[in-house]
């Protein structure tokens, strides 16, 4: 059936493209034509291989040859040697950095890939609405083994041995948490899955629930067995209808198979799961607030201790983990704590799922071993910055995190290193920013979010964040002074020091980290009243460059407020008093005649 006997895959990702991959494709086509091979060999441009460091990349199928750092002038040789004579061009083969060997078949070079999927192992592979597909991929095997072969303490020990730390942001060792909950005696205990993913720009947990709901169900049951709980609750955002639907289907199927309910897999263990819906409050990601919300109350946090492990849902011992943490559990049980520990770093074993977004080419869900650098994530997996712009910052940890910069790009990603750098892991949102982003405005954006989401219970968070936001706004409007920067720093430190819960204790991070890392930009805003990114509207003016303007009237026509005047074929003018600085004219102008001052 196949018309072609061979395929040449040329990476068309942005990174490779900028390294002339288009020329490579063209050369291939010409060479194949010249050799009369275009009928049997097909050239295809592909998406990013996630290996931009060694680009441009050419992969030849079906023999899986993987050529790296290919130049347009190499094409002749590849065609002549490899395609015609069947001899690989060894100098272009990828060299294994550890073994220093050349890899001929890319099937043997899985390790070049920066990503490793543990939590996402089934996501995008199985039909999430069909439990059979999960079982076919070893689903519920881990639960089965726990029930048949292990004591609860054995299970806790494996999780402890794995070194798994909570993926919701705090990074508390999961095994220890389970152990605490197991120690408290009570007639009823609860396992809670925190699926109230609220970081703006983060969608890891939702993707897992939508793609592999059974892994979470299985893990919750394992946790129930380990701590002695028979009831599980998933606290899930009501804004996630698809995840809710798939979770409901999955719970139903698991019940039908007897994998939830009484006497699971013939044991005495009983466990079932119910859903509780969030209703749009970021603070409910904090476990005490989450528990109050599940009890039908305002989601206000309370002082810890007592921790939920001692007194949680309805005052009973409760273990709360987030979705991604749970998704790791079945694999850890099956492959062992040691195996898990072998991945990632000593202090942060395993992988972490990130939602990579913002000004980056390959927006998407990625899972990488801990210890990978930000540079690898952004420039390899992420395919670099969109539209060839310059990297400026990466925001991790959402509103609780900070903005890291060029100098942090080679920092390995771990819980503790990120904190040391002034940010945090958070739940895994990773937003990339380029030269067009103003860091003062970014800090303001996050504060706007925190002000909106503060529960209002404690004064520093309720009022302090508002004051931070107002002071940032003052700076963005061009009214700021150096004292305001100092004021921001003092207020931030006090809020961190005094706020009741994790939300307030971290909400000033975006302010502090942008001041630390982008001091110059703050100074420019307050001293020179200048916003180099051209974001702070009050600090800029749209001006028409007379020598470029041809009088095409396009700008005047697109201007929503009629601020641009001028006769056809003569130089136009923008009235700054009317201009709302929407930027529509710049986008429309074909002659580069409008600029921001």
């Amino acid at each position: 059936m196949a018309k072609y006997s061979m395929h040449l895959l040329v990476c068309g990702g942005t990174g490779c493209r900028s390294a002339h991959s288009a020329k490579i494709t063209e050369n291939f086509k010409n060479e194949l034509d010249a050799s009369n091979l275009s009928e049997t060999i097909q050239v295809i441009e592909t998406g990013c291989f996630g290996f931009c460091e060694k680009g441009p990349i050419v992969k030849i199928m079906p023999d899986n040859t993987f050529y790296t750092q290919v130049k347009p002038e190499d094409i002749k040789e590849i065609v002549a040697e490899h395609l015609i004579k069947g001899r690989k061009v060894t100098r272009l083969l990828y060299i294994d950095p550890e073994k220093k060997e050349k890899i001929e078949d890319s099937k043997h070079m899985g390790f070049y890939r920066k990503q490793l999927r543990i939590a996402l192992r089934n996501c995008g592979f199985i039909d999430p609405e069909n439990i059979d597909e999960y079982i076919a991929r070893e689903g519920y095997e881990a639960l089965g083994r726990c029930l048949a072969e292990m004591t609860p303490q054995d299970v806790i020990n494996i999780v402890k041995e794995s070194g798994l730390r909570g993926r919701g942001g705090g990074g508390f060792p999961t095994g220890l948490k389970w152990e605490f909950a197991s120690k408290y005696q009570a007639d009823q205990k609860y396992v809670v899955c925190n699926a109230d993913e609220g970081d703006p720009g983060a969608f890891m947990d939702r993707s897992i629930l939508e793609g592999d709901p059974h892994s979470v169900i299985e893990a919750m049951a394992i946790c129930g067995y380990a701590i002695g709980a028979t009831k599980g609750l998933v606290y899930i955002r009501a804004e996630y209808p698809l995840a809710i639907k798939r979770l409901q289907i999955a719970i139903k199927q698991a019940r039908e198979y007897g994998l939830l309910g009484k006497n699971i897999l013939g044991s005495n263990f009983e466990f079932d799961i119910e859903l509780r819906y969030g209703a749009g409050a970021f603070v409910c990601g904090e476990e005490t607030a989450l528990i109050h919300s599940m009890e039908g109350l305002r989601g206000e946090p309370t002082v810890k201790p007592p921790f939920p492990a001692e007194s949680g849902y309805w005052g009973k011992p409760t273990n709360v983990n987030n979705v991604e943490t749970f998704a790791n559990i079945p694999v850890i049980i099956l492959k062992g704590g040691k195996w898990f520990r072998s991945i990632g770093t000593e202090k942060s074993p395993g992988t972490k799922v990130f939602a990579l977004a913002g000004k980056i080419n390959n927006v998407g869900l990625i899972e990488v071993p801990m210890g990978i650098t930000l540079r690898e994530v952004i420039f390899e997996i992420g395919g670099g910055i969109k539209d060839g712009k310059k990297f400026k910052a990466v925001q991790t940890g959402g509103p609780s995190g900070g903005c890291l910069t060029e100098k942090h790009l080679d920092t390995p990603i771990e819980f503790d290193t990120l904190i040391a750098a002034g940010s945090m892991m958070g739940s895994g949102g990773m937003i990339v920013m380029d030269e067009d982003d103003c860091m003062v405005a970014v800090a303001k954006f996050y504060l706007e979010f925190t002000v909106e989401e503060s529960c209002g219970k404690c004064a520093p968070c309720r009022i302090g964040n508002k004051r931070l936001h107002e002071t940032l706004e003052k700076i963005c409007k061009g009214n700021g002074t150096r004292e305001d920067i100092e004021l921001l720093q003092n207020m931030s430190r006090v809020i961190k020091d005094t706020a009741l819960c994790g939300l307030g204790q971290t909400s000033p991070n975006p302010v502090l980290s942008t001041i630390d890392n982008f001091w110059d930009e703050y100074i420019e805003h307050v001293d020179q009243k200048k916003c180099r990114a051209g974001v702070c509207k009050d600090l800029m003016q749209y001006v028409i460059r007379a020598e470029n303007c041809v009088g095409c009237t396009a700008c005047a026509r697109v201007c929503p407020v009629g601020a641009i005047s001028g006769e056809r074929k003569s130089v136009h003018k923008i009235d700054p008093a009317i201009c709302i600085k929407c930027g529509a004219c710049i986008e429309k102008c074909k002659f580069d005649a409008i600029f921001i001052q």
Partner: protein
Amino acid sequence: MTKVKSLADLRKMKEELQNKVHLREKGDNAESLVQIRVGMGTSGIASGAKEIFNFFVEELEKRNIEAVVTQTGDMGYNFAEPTVEVTLPGKDPIVFGNVTTQKADKIIECYIKNGELVEGILPENYDKIDNK
């Protein structure tokens, strides 16, 4: 539905299920089928994956191609959604990105019918736990 009553039961079930998949994938069997998975997480659906899913179901039937079309979760390539993974009998799965109905049509005509690749392949960029 029958209950799975023990770990042994579960394992037996798993093997049966795996064999079925295996047979399908091996391709030298009469049962061999084309397998198509459409990434249908929220963001996939938001970018039109449902339409693509329906297109495959309807068109493959019209064109008399034996195939199983299923939904799956987020494949991770959110920059290129909708994404579709096609597994031809005996071959490695291939993921196509930015699939429109025109592209889906091309995938059926060129790749599924003729094994001819179509632009927009997304190379697999991650490792699986089985390799570790």
